[in-house]
């Protein structure tokens, strides 16, 4: 194939005026994605030396990125001229490769998705054929199994509405119930937060070792939360396998990989459902022969603090027949959290930790984590006082009422994704102000009244 592919690419780019992404190229020529990336690189190199007609390239850069003191794994697709810039901003670069080559100067990322769309659509059944990431245990359901799932999913649909309204009423109470905890729980949260930080770091480094990160899109991936971003990377790989590459992979990829995990936690720990769909699904999966749970649940490991997000995401997937089943029926055994935090270099080890993380699910009934936006004030090395707002996970015990509250919290960002941050902030501010009122002002006011 030596130099022939250069002509091929040349034809696509120049004659057809196409946007050639590595994924499209890999599917079109039937070569491995990594080969496709190399081909694009060579072609670009070649053309740059010739300094012939204008060509525009986009690059995919992924690596560790520090944002407001939080480290996250960031995957971005960028224009050529931004390449050095972005690279410089990364504290550690995991992978850089050519994402696409085209003649036109792209004004936004839309067309990049558009190109791949039909290529993937045409190869729907085996679009991950040439992908660098494999999971041998992820086997698609047979059509019979799919039908079974559909049948089971249909019957109980009337529940959700009624339950929803109930929970809406109760949330008001629930949220109140939670507030007072804040002060005490906050102390705990510092510890737990640092713990999770460590664990994410470990896993991240592990990821970096893998040569290619397959995340299809970048911008949506820029979330403040380091845990999340890590998930996105992991699950982005999964998207290659699952049916389509979807527009905001950050939002959609995760549910593709993890519904199983959430199901287990929700269904075991929560009798009350806005989530009844998922339970249906769960029932379905129970009925299945249980093959590939492992593949899916790999990602559960540090899911504690992730739950809310996953829950909100899960909804999107409801309509899709699940491609693979899982044995989320969970052996409720002794909880062993620490195990899950360990990075696992070999797949077997990962699997082990998977089962552990299963087991910890029942535990969550009692102790849960949630993420709260908090502002910390401290003096940094230069002697400046710094106030930082950051999401921290804090643990709290979950009694009957207050597990509805986190639900609500989870639902909020779902309703208005764009505003979710703002909302959270507002909430926390309100909380904070409420607290301060209680602690300082109220005292003085009551004092005032008492004097009278």
């Amino acid at each position, binding site marked *: 194939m030596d130099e022939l592919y250069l002509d091929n690419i040349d034809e696509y780019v120049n004659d057809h*005026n*196409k*946007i050639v992404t590595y994924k499209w190229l890999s599917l079109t020529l039937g070569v491995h994605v990594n080969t496709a990336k190399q081909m694009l690189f060579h072609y670009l190199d070649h053309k740059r030396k010739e300094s012939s007609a204008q060509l525009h390239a986009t690059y995919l850069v992924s690596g560790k990125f520090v944002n407001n003191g939080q480290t996250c794994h960031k995957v971005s697709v960028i224009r050529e001229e931004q390449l050095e810039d972005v690279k410089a901003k990364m504290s550690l670069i995991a992978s850089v490769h050519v994402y696409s080559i*085209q*003649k*036109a*100067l*792209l*004004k*936004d*990322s*839309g*067309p990049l*998705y*558009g*190109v791949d*769309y*039909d290529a993937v*659509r045409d190869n729907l059944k085996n679009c991950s054929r040439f992908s660098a990431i494999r999971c041998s245990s992820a086997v698609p359901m047979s059509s019979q199994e799919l039908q079974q799932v559909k049948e089971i999913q249909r019957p109980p649909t009337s529940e959700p509405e009624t339950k929803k309204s109930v929970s809406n009423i109760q949330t008001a109470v629930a949220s109140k119930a939670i507030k007072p905890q804040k002060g005490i729980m906050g102390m705990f949260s510092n510890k737990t937060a640092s713990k999770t930080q460590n664990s994410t770091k470990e896993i991240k480094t592990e990821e970096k070792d893998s040569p290619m990160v397959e995340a299809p899109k970048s911008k949506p991936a820029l979330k403040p939360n380091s845990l999340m971003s890590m998930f996105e990377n992991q699950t982005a790989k999964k998207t290659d396998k699952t049916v389509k590459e979807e*527009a905001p992979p950050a939002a959609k990829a995760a549910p593709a990989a993890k519904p199983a995990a959430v199901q287990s936690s929700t269904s075991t720990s929560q009798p009350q459902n806005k989530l009844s769909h998922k339970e249906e699904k769960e029932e379905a999966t129970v009925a299945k022969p249980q093959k590939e749970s492992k593949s899916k649940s790999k990602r559960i490991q540090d899911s504690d603090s992730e739950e809310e997000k996953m829950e909100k995401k899960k909804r999107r997937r409801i309509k899709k027949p699940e491609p693979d089943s899982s044995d989320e029926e969970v052996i409720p055994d002794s909880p062993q959290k620490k195990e899950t935090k360990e990075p696992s270099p070999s797949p077997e080890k990962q699997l082990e930790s998977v089962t552990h993380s299963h087991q910890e699910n029942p535990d969550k009934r009692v102790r849960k984590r949630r993420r709260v936006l908090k502002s910390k004030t401290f003096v940094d090395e230069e002697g400046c006082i710094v106030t930082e707002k950051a999401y921290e996970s804090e643990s709290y015990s979950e009694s009957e009422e207050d597990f509805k509250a986190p639900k609500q919290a989870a639902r909020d960002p779902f309703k208005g994704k764009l505003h979710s941050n703002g909302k959270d902030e507002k909430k926390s501010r309100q909380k904070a102000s409420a607290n301060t009122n209680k602690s300082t002002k109220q005292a003085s006011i009551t004092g005032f009244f008492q004097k009278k």
Partner: protein
Amino acid sequence: MTTLTRQDINFGQVVADILCEFLEVAIHLILYVREVYPSGIFQKRKKYNVPVQMSCHPELNQYIQDTLHCVKPLIEKNDAEKVVVVIMDKEHHPVERFVFEISQPPLLSIRESKGPLGGSDILLSHVEQLLRAFILKISVCDAILNNNPPGCSFTVLVHTRDVATRNMEKVQVIKDFPWIVADEQEVNMQEPKLIPLKTMTSDILKLWRAVILDRI
């Protein structure tokens, strides 16, 4: 296999709907890609399952909608031959023309299956795929086009068959939104150069698109 003629209810309408929808998307995208309007007024939307850019400017949107609203009856009756988006420079000389040539087969054959528009699922998804390809072509078309001079504006021209224009003048679909016969100046270019962009052929319509450039 049943055959539906153009007279059959709804069919012309369906085609017109699809086409007008597409034209709307296309016009927005052209305006975005060719930088007729500042990119600030555009927002990402999803159409045909891919992201496209759409203007948020209410007046511009209204104008485009009104225009297409008037074009629709023509397409329904198969009276429209071409829809042209003309980009003009400050002196109202056309610089680029994006030509959508529409031709609809007189007989529409559609495979019978469930539903009134039998087999329409496959058909429509096919059409959608073709339209998606069109959209994609538009977004990369500036590779073959030069930058437009600043201060451009645009108009939409419709080439009708036969005497459809007369009817159009008589019956104004939208009040106070009259159509006028285009100036010679707007229609003709001095040294036109044609760049075909994309052709699509489907059971229900044939669409052909090209850019005609005027480079003096």
